[in-house]
């Protein structure tokens, strides 16, 4: 034991050294530490406290509720519903040593995703936020939550989001538009009124632990979101539905190749009641392609690039082809053709030409025109042919419009002159946008002023063609507004589609009212034009548009799409057939345009506005005018069956005589016990009914036959055999070429004897 295990006394050197170390390590060493703590915790307290707070707080944006879209009767067109996004935190998954392949499998199954794709998302640790599913419904979200709890997985998160819901699906889809993935309005009203609808986002500032840990000692600060304004549209769901229904029927009936567009506007106020572009989409799933043909082509292109080796140039190219094809198809179906696309209006434009000529006195109602089928018009290099090669012969001004005679209009244009023509066109608003409150309006393409006014230099081709609506383009809304000015007393108005914006508290923050821009023609001219337009329906090319009981007017149009070329570079001669109808003619309220783009030649039906578009508009009017409360201006030649029960024979005969009905009497008792048809039914005048005096009525049901193609006489006979009455709509002329083209009661339907069938008659030879 000679080393250190020995007692040593009085070793002052070691004593001193230990005291030194005690001083250094037990006292001095702590001084800089405490000084440093003082510096951090007292001197720089504010700095670190602020840093710590910022470190521990999360500012979450609270999206404001997007406003609701209502139609004019407060039917909901668009609203937002709560959904959830699901995202992964790959770092957290890694830290918690999650079984990624299994997780990917499970999530893929739960959310119908590709497991391999989920796995790549889950392993991308460069990000802390990897969204794997957007806007899933509450049920799916609940399943994911359950999965998280059951498996105790850390790193799967859900966050609330909203999804726009459009209860009416495809109805008025291009007008309403849709919101994109980040809830911003795209297209239509959603886009045009996005700032009204969005509101102001709020904030929640929360102290929260890292990795989403809850923290008991936390505070939250709220800054409320201001919900967006709700909008009340001028659109009427009932009118919109009727318009789209009739347009869709027309598309089927005439095998229309390229969709259709149409609208209903109040001619006095400019309110748009309906606006439709068929060949549309469902905004609830706006990315899908709805045209079956385009969808099939897109699928082919997709299969093509999928069949290639990924990451090769060919693959990329094929994928790009697919992507651009798809996005073109989407843009096409989202497009609101009523405001965005110019088209050649054809004869419907003649309304404005004639109004201008009458208004400035270039012609009067007594001006006469002669049509020989073709004529060499001064200033035109080629002979001008009328659509009717046989010619219309001698015509009055009214005849010119009724016949839609191009030669007459060429002469009207010459009388009017370029200056005045251009001036009126400008004042009818054809050179400007209408100012409709929707995104994406364009303004068509009209001639330069010089081209129509300087006839010495440019000839009269533009002037004369322009007068009957050819070789220039305008938008459907421009046409409708112009013709509205013709019939409403001469006032050019600004159309609108949003009546008011109401904030969450119910305060109106925006109210749109009728804006009259200028008077284009005099009230007198307007009155005359109304009479002329009515005569077009009653006597002219638009007889097929007739609606029983209403005085309607309008003008047909058929235009060739001269700028659409086929593969060999020749014009395809595809046609747009259209009709603009106005009702009621004694005091016009509504204007309706329907245009069908490219009816197929294969149906064998004569392609013209008169044959195809006029009955469509007539049918729309038949559907909506009673609903809109438009007065019938002439008593129907149909009568409503009175209740005869309890009447004596003379009483009964008197009652029926007043209505122009006859009766076949059955039985011998004193008073009427029953009758066919029942009280309240509508039947044509001069019909015969069955009246029972005691004897039990026999009222077998009959099957509705197919009336299509029958003339009026054939149809009435066929109906009479079955004890049915015929109600005529459309063309009421009795002629061999006016036949049934549609019937309200489908063939095969069972009806009581004495019921009425409503048949649509169309002049299948009507032109223009």
């Amino acid at each position, binding site marked *: *034991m*000679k*080393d*250190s*295990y*020995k*007692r*040593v006394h009085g*070793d002052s*050197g*070691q*004593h001193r*050294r*230990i*005291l030194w*170390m*005690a001083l250094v*390590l*037990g*006292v001095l*060493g*702590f001084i*800089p*530490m*405490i000084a*440093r*703590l*003082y510096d*951090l*915790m*007292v001197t*720089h*307290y504010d*700095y*670190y*406290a602020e*840093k*710590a*707070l910022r*470190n*521990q707080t999360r500012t979450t944006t609270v999206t404001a509720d997007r406003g609701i879209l209502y139609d004019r009767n407060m039917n909901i067109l668009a609203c937002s519903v709560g959904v959830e996004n699901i995202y992964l935190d790959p770092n957290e998954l890694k830290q918690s040593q999650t079984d990624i392949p299994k997780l990917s499998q499970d999530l893929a199954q739960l959310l119908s995703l590709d497991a391999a794709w989920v796995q790549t998302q889950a392993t991308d640790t460069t990000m802390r936020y990897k969204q794997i599913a957007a806007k899933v419904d509450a049920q799916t979200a609940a399943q994911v939550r359950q999965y998280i709890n059951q498996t*105790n997985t*850390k790193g799967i998160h859900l966050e609330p989001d909203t999804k726009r819901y459009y209860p009416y699906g495809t109805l008025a889809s291009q007008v309403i538009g849709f919101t994109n993935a980040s809830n911003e309005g795209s297209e239509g009203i959603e886009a045009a009124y996005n700032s009204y609808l969005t509101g102001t986002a709020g904030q929640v500032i929360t*102290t*929260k*632990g*890292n*990795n989403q*840990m*809850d*923290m008991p*000692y*936390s505070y939250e600060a709220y800054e409320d979101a201001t919900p967006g304004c709700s909008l009340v549209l001028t659109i009427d769901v009932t009118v919109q539905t009727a318009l789209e229904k009739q347009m869709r029927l027309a598309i089927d009936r005439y095998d229309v190749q390229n969709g259709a567009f149409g609208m209903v506007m109040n001619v006095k106020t400019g309110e748009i009641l309906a606006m439709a572009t068929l060949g549309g989409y469902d905004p609830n799933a706006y990315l899908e392609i709805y045209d079956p043909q385009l969808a099939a082509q897109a699928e082919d292109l997709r299969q093509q690039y999928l069949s290639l080796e990924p990451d090769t140039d060919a693959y990329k190219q094929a994928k790009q082809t697919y992507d651009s094809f798809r996005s073109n198809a989407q843009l096409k179906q989202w497009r609101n053709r009523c405001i965005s696309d110019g088209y050649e209006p054809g004869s419907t434009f003649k309304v404005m030409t004639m109004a201008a000529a009458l208004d400035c006195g270039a012609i009067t109602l007594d001006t006469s025109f002669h049509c020989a089928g073709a004529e060499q018009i001064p200033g035109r290099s080629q002979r001008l042919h009328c659509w009717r090669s046989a010619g219309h012969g001698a015509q009055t001004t009214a005849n010119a419009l009724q016949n839609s005679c191009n030669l007459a209009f060429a002469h009207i244009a010459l009388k009017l002159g370029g200056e005045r023509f251009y001036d009126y066109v400008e004042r009818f608003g054809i050179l400007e946008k209408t100012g409709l409150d929707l995104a994406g309006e364009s303004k068509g393409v009209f001639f330069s002023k010089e081209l129509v006014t300087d006839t010495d230099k440019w000839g009269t081709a533009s002037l004369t063609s322009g007068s009957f609506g050819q070789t220039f383009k305008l938008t459907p809304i421009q046409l409708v507004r112009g013709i509205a000015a013709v019939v409403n007393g001469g006032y050019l108005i600004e159309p609108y589609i949003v009546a008011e914006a109401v904030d969450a508290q119910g305060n109106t923050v925006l109210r749109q009212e009728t804006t009259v821009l200028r008077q284009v023609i005099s009230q007198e001219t307007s009155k005359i034009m109304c009479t002329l337009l009515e005569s077009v329906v009653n006597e002219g090319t638009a007889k097929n548009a007739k609606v029983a009981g209403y005085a309607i007017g309008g003008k047909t149009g058929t235009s060739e799409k001269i700028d659409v070329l086929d593969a060999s570079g020749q014009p395809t001669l595809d046609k747009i057939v259209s009709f603009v109808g106005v009702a009621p003619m004694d005091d016009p309220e509504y204007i309706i345009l329907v245009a069908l783009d490219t009816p197929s030649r294969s149906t064998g039906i004569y392609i013209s506005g008169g044959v195809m578009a006029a009955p469509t508009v007539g049918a729309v009017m038949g559907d909506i005018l009673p609903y809109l409360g438009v007065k019938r201006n002439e008593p129907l030649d149909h009568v409503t069956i009175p209740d005869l029960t309890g009447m004596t024979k003379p009483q009964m005969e008197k009652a029926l005589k007043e209505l122009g009905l006859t009766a076949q009497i059955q039985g011998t008792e004193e008073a009427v016990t029953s009758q066919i048809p029942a009280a309240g039914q509508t039947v044509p005048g001069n019909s015969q009914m069955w009246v029972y005096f005691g004897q039990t009525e026999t009222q077998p049901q009959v099957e509705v036959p197919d009336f299509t193609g029958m003339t009026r006489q054939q149809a009435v006979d066929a109906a009479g055999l079955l004890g049915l009455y015929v109600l005529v709509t459309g063309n009421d002329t009795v002629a061999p070429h006016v036949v049934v083209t549609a019937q309200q009661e489908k063939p095969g339907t069972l009806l009581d004897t004495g019921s009425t069938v409503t048949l649509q008659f169309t002049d299948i030879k009507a032109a223009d």
Partner: protein
Amino acid sequence: MAAERSLYAKEERLSRRKSIDFPFLFLLLLLLTLGLGMLYSASSAQSQYDTHYTDSTRYLQKQAVCAFIGLGAMAIASRIPAKFWYQMAWPLYGISIGLLLMVLFFGESVNGAKRWVNILGLQFQPSEIAKFTLILLFARLTRIYDTDAKKFRYGVLGFGAALLGILIPLALEKHLSAIMLMGMVAVVMMFIAGTSPKWLLTGAALAGLFVLVYVSFMGYAGDRITAWQHPESDPSDTGYQILQSLYAIGSGGLFGLGLGKSRQKYLYLPFQYNDYIFAVICEELGLVGATAILLLFGALILRGYWIALRANNRFSTVLAAGLVTLIAVQTLLNIGVVTNLLPSTGIALPFFSYGGTALAVNLGEMGILLSISRRNNAQEDLL
């Protein structure tokens, strides 16, 4: 020899009879209690997170078990005469080198570092044991007379060889913090043992040079230096740890957010319940509480050196001083790192930081100090 033997026998009797140093024990138990309390607070959030909000005491439970084992070890050690350790110095040193080598070959990784071994189901860090055996061997190697210690042979060569025996396996483990800690403890012990300060200064200079070269060649260590001096330059990566620590400390202010109310412990501050527990203490207890704890450590250290001074032989003196130095250096280095006075290294705060082996070994070592404190009482009797 006979006289000596009887003297040992008498000492041994006295050691059983005479009481331990109660002020030291009091300070120690106070720190241990505070340590467990703060460990619970600092680890509760992590525990909840790890157990999906079912248990906030996961870490406290493990630590408490080790504390009980440590207290048992302390009670036993306080009754083992210093002679036993004198005799065991060399064998234990050998065993600990063996264990360190085991780590190299059969070690287990925790958090990416391979520093644990598993013997008979018992998982522990051999470096904790190596620290103790090095101190023990240094005490054993201390010469009785200063004149001997001044000699290069005794004052430098012996200690140096003993130190290298431990440092080389640690260097192979890349256990930088343990190397630093042992180097510093070794220098202090050699100073106390009487090694000439000029050798120590030379040694310190050489170590400094080595660190410089090491830093310039090892990019990873270089990053640590940048993160130390400019933590805000990369707040999300290399500077993250230290910034989170500074936020915790600074936001504590004078009186703190209140016991248990740390916010940074909610997974913002990494290692919040082991190496960086002092930052949570500052956040919750403020400058007042943190200073109080530092003063307790200071008092424990001073009382420990007081025990060393009063030990009845040179081995016990140096052993006691070495063990106190180990606690002191760990404490100062830990606080220095947490407050960013020093670049970051993984050094735990004794009695506070989570870590079962360290706590148990530390308490056992304190038991040896208590045993030595009995002897200095005895010494007074003998005088």
